[in-house]
């Protein structure tokens, strides 16, 4: 089954729309769903032109395609456990929160908190992601716990904060504090980033470019070969417990 949701233009265009109902399994029982613009409840078809092709008995067989100006659409794919969501443009905050299965593909840019507290499944973003991609919630100790997030563009600050499992790969540069508080799982940044793996307690963080503002409490172990690259290996943050591994191609201290 393929559900196509084309965003209609809005009069108050800047007020975000919360659309946690847009999850493949919800469409198994029709399109009588609602979304919220600010404090107003809207029927799905007030916000979108809805069309459905084919049918399905299980969420795995449902694909939702979002088009139009979806940059302010929040919480799409929250708690998604199966199926597929394809976003042709950009997507708003909190896409794929708590996701445990299925696939989300974003062709444009994703706003903050993409894949927050994700437990499984796959998110692919062809554009850039804003801050807190694959991170946790305020006050929480665990960020993403499982699954895969792959970003082909750049990532903002606090990428994979408190990473507790799964794999996050960013092909471009990442911002400040990438992988802060990481305790398990793997973070790979192909480009440069600033202050990676701050306060690391475990897990692995790879920076194929330059780590700027390198935190002074990592102990240099030596060089290793990793997927055809020579990387410098450091062990975890000594300010914390000195556990985990950080691999960088190059680094600069703020000395």
């Amino acid at each position, binding site marked *: 089954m393929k559900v196509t949701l084309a965003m209609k233009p809005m009069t108050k265009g800047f007020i975000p729309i919360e659309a946690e109902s847009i999850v493949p399994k919800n469409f198994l029982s029709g399109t009588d769903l609602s979304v919220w613009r600010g404090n107003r409840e809207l029927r799905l078809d007030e916000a979108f032109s809805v069309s459905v092709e084919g049918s399905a008995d299980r969420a795995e067989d449902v694909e939702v395609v979002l088009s139009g100006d979806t940059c302010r659409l929040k919480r799409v794919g929250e708690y998604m456990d199966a199926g597929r969501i394809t976003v042709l443009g950009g997507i708003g905050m909190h896409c794929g929160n708590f996701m445990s299965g299925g696939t989300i593909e974003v062709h444009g840019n994703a706003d*903050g*908190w993409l894949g927050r507290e994700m437990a499984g499944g796959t998110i692919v973003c062809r554009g850039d992601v*804003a*801050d*807190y991609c694959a991170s946790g919630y305020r006050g929480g100790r665990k960020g993403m716990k499982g699954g895969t997030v792959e970003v082909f563009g750049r990532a*903002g*600050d*606090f990428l994979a904060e408190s990473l507790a499992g799964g794999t996050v790969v960013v092909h471009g540069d990442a*911002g*400040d504090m990438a992988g802060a508080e990481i305790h398990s799982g793997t973070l790979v940044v192909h480009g440069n980033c600033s202050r990676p793996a701050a306060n690391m307690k475990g897990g692995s963080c790879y920076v194929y470019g330059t780590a700027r503002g390198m935190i002074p409490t990592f102990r240099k172990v030596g060089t290793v070969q990793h997927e055809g690259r020579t990387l410098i290996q450091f062990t975890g943050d000594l300010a914390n417990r000195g556990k985990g591994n950080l691999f960088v191609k190059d680094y600069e201290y703020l000395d």
Partner: protein
Amino acid sequence: MKFLMITGRTVNQGVTVENKTSPEYAAETSTCFMHEFDMMELGLDDGDTVRVTGPCGDVVMRVSASVEVEMGTVFVPYGPYANHIVAAGTRSTGMPDFKSHMVEIEPTDEAPKLVHELMEDLGGLAYDS
């Protein structure tokens, strides 16, 4: 010349903060504190005006020599002048980068605007009575 702009509280800013229509508040918050060597480099004397250009535009301020700032940085008391050029991005923390903006500073002959002029430039309407 490029500088790191840091904003912060000062006694004078605090003293005038409850009276934002006053010339004293405008004077304090449009002051750009600078190291005297940097001022020499730009050919500036105390009280000269400069155009400060940040990521979101530019504003005219008056320079004042200060022993508290390092070369390469300037200090501007919190207020509408600094905020005229500070970017609104917060890195998703709620807090703008108030203390870490790179700005371009050049001498100018223009005088700093009044606070209400800055507000009117952005679509406000001054109130005075």
